[in-house]
């Protein structure tokens, strides 16, 4: 009888505060919020609720189906010029009406970037777009340098979400000029057009979203969302169990049983569109021989890692590809394999003398990252490689002393360019950091892959790039991690296949509360 009463009482537990208010316990909170400069796995959780792009997509579907957002229609008036009609009566969270000038300002802050963080982001994904220009109060044009095979894809990026011009310029200094300090200030007091306005933001600690009643689209289903950083997994689980949080993020598969056993709680998860990868420094003096790096890669039994750390729920790729890439998904390519005997033979050929190879990892940034690093050391040892895990929070990917480390290659947009491409382009982030080399042949293959409007040609060129990666490896995708969220039964929410990784989409149609 007592158990029945207890069960009834627990089932009737209210959400953290009220019917339209929830609390999210997040493993990480961003240090700043600016969709233009950010492309981190942490930041990507937060932008979609508060900002809009010109073109959106149906996020319930894996294959892109483009939908109007702040642009109501668009067409290519020339192969290198897209014209977009802007939605009318759109308001920013600060009350300003959105104008064509705001849109041009937002796009050109990236396409003609001078603020260094924007320059980096623009270079790795928007380099084909020299500028946007205003045609009239409700029409703009975006120009491309070359014929662009990914128009809608790139115009729907997080980095080209729309922000208010006058508000941003007035944040510091001259209110008529966009200064670097304005963008720095914006990142701490962000304003967009999305269904939730950011009421308070404490960098690295918490964020509060409040329903924006003047949103141009369907009304936000929640009145208020509190996001608080709870770094420790055990603390997040406790917060969910005690009712302190209604949703918690980043739960490793081996912790799910604890939630699933509780009849008042449930989990939702997916193999996130992101690879946890191992990167290797091609330019480290001791790793210059590609056979050593091939052996480092061939020694790793990724299926065993997936089975052990992700309970087999992750996805181990044969090449750098994902189903989200649609026609360019090429699972038949075999770039990365497990072959310890071949690894041993390569080490012998290369005259490996047992020198120590360090593997850097952050202690907790990637779910299971430290565990995978330790397991990889055992796998290396099995083929004769002398590995050592070095734990630290500092990013070492730009250090000449880097030998190997973990990293992630998220799918920033649904195309091989949006995952492998962003990270491993000629003069891209990996090459700029000095651990990856390209040459004329690589660049030529890259050009065909990036810009050909012939789909088959892009596929062939991508396969050729993967062959180059196989010959002279700098990266090994380990797996697509199976990331899970825990939540109360009263919440109906799950990650959607059309989003980039980790997006907490609380827009209309994406979340409902049973008792609301």
């Amino acid at each position, binding site marked *: 009888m007592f158990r029945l009463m207890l069960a009834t009482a627990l089932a009737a537990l209210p959400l953290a505060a009220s019917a339209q208010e929830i609390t999210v316990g997040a493993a990480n909170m961003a240090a700043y919020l600016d969709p233009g400069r950010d492309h981190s796995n942490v930041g990507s959780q937060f932008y979609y609720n508060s900002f809009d792009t010109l073109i959106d997509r149906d996020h319930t579907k894996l294959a892109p189906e483009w939908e109007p957002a702040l642009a109501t229609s668009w067409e290519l008036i020339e192969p290198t010029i897209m014209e977009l009609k802007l939605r009318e009566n759109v308001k920013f969270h600060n009350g300003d009406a959105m104008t064509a000038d705001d849109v041009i300002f937002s796009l050109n802050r990236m396409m003609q970037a001078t603020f260094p963080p924007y320059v980096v982001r623009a270079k790795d994904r928007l380099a084909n777009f020299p500028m946007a220009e205003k045609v009239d109060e409700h029409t703009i044009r975006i120009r491309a340098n070359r014929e662009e095979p990914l128009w809608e894809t790139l115009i729907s990026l997080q980095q080209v979400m729309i922000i208010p011009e006058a508000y941003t310029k007035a944040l510091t200094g001259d209110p008529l000029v966009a200064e670097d300090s304005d963008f720095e200030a914006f990142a701490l007091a962000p304003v967009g057009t999305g269904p939730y306005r950011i009421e308070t933001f404490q960098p690295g600690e918490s964020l509060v979203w409040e329903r924006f009643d003047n949103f141009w689209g369907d009304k936000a289903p929640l009145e208020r969302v509190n996001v608080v950083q709870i770094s*420790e*997994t*055990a603390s997040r*689980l*406790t917060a969910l169990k005690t009712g302190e949080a209604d949703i918690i993020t980043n739960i*490793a598969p*081996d*912790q799910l*049983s*604890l939630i699933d056993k509780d009849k008042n709680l449930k989990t939702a998860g997916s193999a996130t569109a992101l690879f946890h990868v191992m990167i290797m420094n091609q330019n480290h003096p001791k790793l210059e021989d590609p056979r050593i790096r091939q052996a480092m890669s061939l020694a790793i039994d990724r299926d*065993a*890692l997936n*089975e*052990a*750390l992700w309970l087999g729920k992750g996805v181990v790729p044969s090449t750098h590809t994902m189903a989200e890439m649609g026609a360019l998904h090429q699972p038949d390519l075999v770039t990365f394999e497990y072959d310890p005997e071949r690894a041993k033979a390569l080490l012998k050929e290369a005259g490996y003398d047992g020198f120590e190879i360090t593997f850097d990892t952050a*202690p907790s940034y990637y779910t299971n990252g*430290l*565990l995978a690093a*330790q*397991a990889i*050391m*055992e796998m290396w040892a099995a083929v004769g490689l002398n590995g050592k*895990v*070095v*734990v630290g929070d500092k990013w070492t990917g730009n250090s000449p002393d880097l030998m190997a480390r973990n990293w992630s290659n998220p799918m920033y947009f649904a195309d091989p360019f949006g995952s492998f491409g962003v990270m491993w382009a000629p003069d891209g982030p990996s090459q700029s950091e000095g651990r990856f080399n390209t040459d004329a042949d690589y660049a030529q293959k890259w050009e065909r892959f990036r810009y050909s409007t012939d789909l088959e040609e892009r596929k062939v060129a991508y396969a050729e790039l993967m062959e180059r990666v196989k010959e002279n490896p700098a990266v090994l995708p380990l797996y697509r991690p199976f990331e899970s969220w825990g939540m109360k039964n009263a919440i109906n929410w799950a990650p959607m296949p059309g989003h980039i990784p980790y997006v907490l989409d609380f827009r209309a149609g994406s979340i409902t509360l049973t008792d609301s």
Partner: protein
Amino acid sequence: MVQLADPIMRLSKRKANQTNFIQKTAIAIAILLFASAFFAPLIVPFDPLDQSLLSRLRPPLGFERFAVGHWAGTDELGRDVLSRALHGMRLTLSLAFAGAVIGLLIGGTLGLIAGLRQGWAEDAIMSLVDMQIAIPFTLVALLILSLMGSSLTVLVMVLGIAGWEQYARIVRAEVRRLSALPFIEAAWTAGAGPIYIAWRHVLPNLISPLVVQFTLALSNIVILESTLSFLGLGVQPPQPSLGSMVGLGRDYMPTAPWIVLVPAALIMALTFSVQILGDWLRDRADVRLRDR
């Protein structure tokens, strides 16, 4: 009228001359733990670094899904928790011994100089002692390890400077007390130098309080090492220490608590038994208590 014995004498005699049950138990635990740590490579069932990825998070004996041979269960990489805990205790104790010895050498030397030389040298050394006491040392340790990295060498040095000031205070006080005694004055009068006096007459009289302080410092250093490793700044994976096992296992507290409970229990048993051992040695060494 019944004559009652002097209550202080009764208490003192029991403390000094009789080893009570708690002390006996603690000494037995300390001997067992030290022996287990020392002989860990010979007695543990598995290599502490050997992983078995498909046998992760197996519970200890007596629970469902127990994996044969892994009496205290397995950790998040399928490593034997008992083997790691005993090897971890071995490393923790080695670091604590090294740290305590360094602290003894630094503190003892400075205390001796302060006691013998007095004057400005004593003032300078005792100012350093006061500074060390005033600053929370865990914060200093965190700062040093953050700046200099978490190698074992740096860790040992940090542990070494953790408690030197206690040795310095004890040695200085003892030296000053001894200096006033007739046999030291006689040595000075006979023309003996300070090094001869320190070596021949002072040091032998310091051994007893230093042994006691060493034992007490040991348990404090065990806790400091465990704290630093728990915070990820001490012993680095995959090498186990008791603190790092607790630190890395804390995410599994709700689902696999044995990963944390086994090393945590060892930390508790170790510090408790060593602390009692220190108290016991102090009582035995205190002539005022012993001679009553």
